[in-house]
């Protein structure tokens, strides 16, 4: 089963959409410079647009690599100012290790132009309809659901 780690960032109006993207890049690159950071910074405007649309409020930015998977959400409005649901802490593993990919949730109406715009900068950073789960997420969710099946017999046992 895939190990999944969740992080939640405070976005608008605590910080603007582009600064939110840059904070996410900081988390993923762990402060390192290099090709990964360059590639992520290059799509900053597109990332900011998706964040300003509040797409990562309910659907995660999903980061996959040769290690654990990272799911990133954003908080908005009063929740962003309050910040009590945020978790922006550093990761205890390399989230871009090996063959990494970033899947951005996108409003369906924006998907075509966002995908075209991303292609100009990266093959690793892609966009999906925010109502569509990333392929392996379905398996992960299914596994998690199976783990939580209610054991009525066990519950009622004395």
């Amino acid at each position, binding site marked *: 089963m895939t190990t999944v780690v969740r992080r939640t960032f405070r976005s*608008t*109006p*605590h*910080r*603007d*959409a*582009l600064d939110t993207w840059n904070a996410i890049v900081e988390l993923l690159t762990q402060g390192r410079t290099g090709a990964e950071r360059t590639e992520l910074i290059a799509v*900053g*405007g*597109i990332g*900011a*647009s998706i964040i*300003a*649309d509040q797409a990562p409020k309910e659907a995660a930015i999903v980061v996959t690599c040769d290690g654990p998977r990272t799911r990133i959400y954003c908080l*908005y*409005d*009063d929740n962003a*100012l*309050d910040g009590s649901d945020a978790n922006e802490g550093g990761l205890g593993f390399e989230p871009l290790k090996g063959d990494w990919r970033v899947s951005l949730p996108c409003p369906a*109406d*924006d998907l075509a*132009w966002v995908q*075209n*715009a991303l292609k100009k900068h990266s093959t690793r950073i892609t966009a999906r309809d925010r109502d569509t789960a990333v392929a392996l997420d379905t398996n992960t969710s299914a596994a998690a659901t199976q783990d939580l099946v209610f054991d009525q017999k066990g519950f009622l046992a004395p």
Partner: protein
Amino acid sequence: MTSVVVNTFTNSVIYVADNILMSMKEIIRLSGLDPSNLVEGWSLHKRGLQSWLLSRHLETVVLEVFDPNTDALVGRWDIDVIYTTGVGDGVFWTDTAQIKYHIQKVGVVPSQARYRLLLQNKPGADEVDGWGPGKYRSTDGFARHSLGSTIEHNGLGGNTAYWRKA
């Protein structure tokens, strides 16, 4: 201990600037154009918006749509900035549905059309890196239609209007 969320003018500036850009992106897309150029310049656009909102010099954000062959105006959208800071109940409000409704009335623009974003300031605004003086295209033959308020937080907001051939 009881905690309350504190809204500052800076928070309002961040909220309004982001939602002005988001609204302009929606206008461009719904008009049948590619928002990539606006989005690629997000950093430059937000720098101008935030700087001049914070100093209260920003009056109007203008999206001009024009024919690249004739340089003539095809359509135009304005967001007039309203400063009544200190008023409001902290509600974050952005109404893109109203914009969508009016774009359907205006219709899509020719696919070869181009666009650019202009910021109009009151006199005395500091210079911001990447921004310089500019001039509007003529609106002769166009009429302005107001939608009213479409963005608002704690008294800082934007009233949207569009121009179409009279």
